[in-house]
């Protein structure tokens, strides 16, 4: 009993416990995921546009990008992009004379870039589906009203596209928070998984700390599911149910 009590005590706030580390871990995981998601959304928009535009080469490029990223394990891609990114960036900096040899690249940036590039491929297909779901007649009507390309996009396509793809967007957000755990394999940046791993290997109480880590992740997922569910409802307000 005493042992169990001391185990719970290690989850305390402050110097003696991991409580505050886990709490900070939630913030860091959400921060990494959010930054990566924003990058991924940008890439996804570009990807969706290149897959749907009338230039053959761009269609092909988009196709290759999504196919390759989707058929290679995320773990592998994160390690590859992390090493490639950090070593390229450091050699560029050294080459420009901006840094000394053996400069340390901030692992945060590399990790966010890696997740962003991976999820860009998934969001490309989600957003492409959303664009394609917008009824053709509405776009033709907008053209007939004399709206030019960008205005058509902002007024007609974008609002409906978001509604059609909101389920997919929510799912990918859930996946990105979970895949951010792979970050702990390349760099301990203080995210939930890194904290849990550090705590478990230091104390050797694997069940307790990995259990705690899992619960923290479940809280993050649960809240995300609730929020995305609400957003979905909101996006579909005013739409008659089939």
């Amino acid at each position, binding site marked *: 009993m005493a042992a169990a009590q001391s185990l719970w005590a290690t989850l305390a706030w402050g110097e003696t416990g991991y409580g505050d580390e886990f709490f900070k871990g939630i913030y860091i995981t959400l921060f990494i995921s959010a930054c990566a998601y924003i990058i991924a959304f940008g890439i996804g928009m570009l990807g969706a546009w290149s897959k749907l535009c009338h230039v053959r080469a761009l269609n092909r490029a988009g196709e290759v990008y999504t196919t390759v990223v989707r058929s290679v*394990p995320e773990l592998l891609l994160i390690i590859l992009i992390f*090493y490639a990114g950090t070593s390229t960036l450091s050699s560029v900096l050294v080459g420009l004379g901006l840094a000394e040899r053996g400069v340390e690249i901030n692992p945060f940036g590399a990790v966010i870039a890696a997740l962003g590039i991976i999820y860009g491929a998934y969001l490309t297909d989600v957003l492409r589906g959303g664009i394609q779901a917008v009824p053709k007649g509405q776009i033709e009507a907008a053209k007939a009203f004399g709206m030019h390309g960008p205005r058509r996009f902002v007024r007609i396509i974008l609002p409906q596209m978001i509604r059609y793809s909101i389920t997919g967007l929510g799912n990918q957000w859930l996946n990105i928070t979970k895949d951010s755990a792979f970050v*702990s394999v390349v760099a301990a940046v203080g995210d939930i998984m890194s904290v*849990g791993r550090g705590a478990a290997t230091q104390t050797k109480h*694997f069940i307790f700390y990995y259990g705690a880590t899992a619960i923290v992740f479940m809280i993050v*997922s*649960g809240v995300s599911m609730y929020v995305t569910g609400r957003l979905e409802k909101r996006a579909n307000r005013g739409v008659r149910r089939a």
Partner: protein
Amino acid sequence: MKFDPIYMITVVLPQLIAVLPLTLLLTITSSVIGNSLAVPVALARLNPNPLLWIPARAFIFTMRGTPFLIQLFFIYYGLGELIPGWMMRGYPFLKNGLYYAIFALSLNTAGYTGEILRGAILAVPHGEIEAARAFGMSRAQVFWRITLPRAVRICLPTMSSETILLLKVTSVASLVTVYEVMGTATSIRVDTYRVYDTLIGAGIVYFVTVFVLTRGLNWVERKLNKDRLAIPTSDKPAQAQA
């Protein structure tokens, strides 16, 4: 640290292809066990008895709400903490990460497929079940002869994309000392410091495997859905793509 295609093709790829059977073994075993476990999970989830549906729902939420990395670590290190030392020494297979990986992958698959199967069971046309009941089949007979086969066919496209995801997730087993494709690539990488050769090589192996597997699963889907596909109007078979 430069990419050296000749080294990759002559040295890395043969070693990775030699361990590809292990990756396939992980995928197939976990897919068979996990998909079989998914049936009781889905049934428990649909049962009106709260003693059944609450645990099933909690199980599904745990599997879907936490990263696979943490599930694997929890099982591998957690069971390692529980199993006493004399047992570890007496039965050396208990030290092998492979069994823990298969166990974790199976549970993960059971959670994901359980939820998919639940939706599919609900989508089985009610008239068919009523007809079977009218023929005097017992509830169990109706389930095994009508509901389950129909449900599996309904969720087949989702299940085959889950299998692709499973193949990719097996790479995480490399973190618990399973020397499948990713694990072997990592050990070569650590030994030789060749980051690009090993990781790109592993990426190529996964890409080709996923490509072949996708084709194979599409073929199975077409075979099983022969009578459900629309009458082909041209020589080209209708693509059953989601």
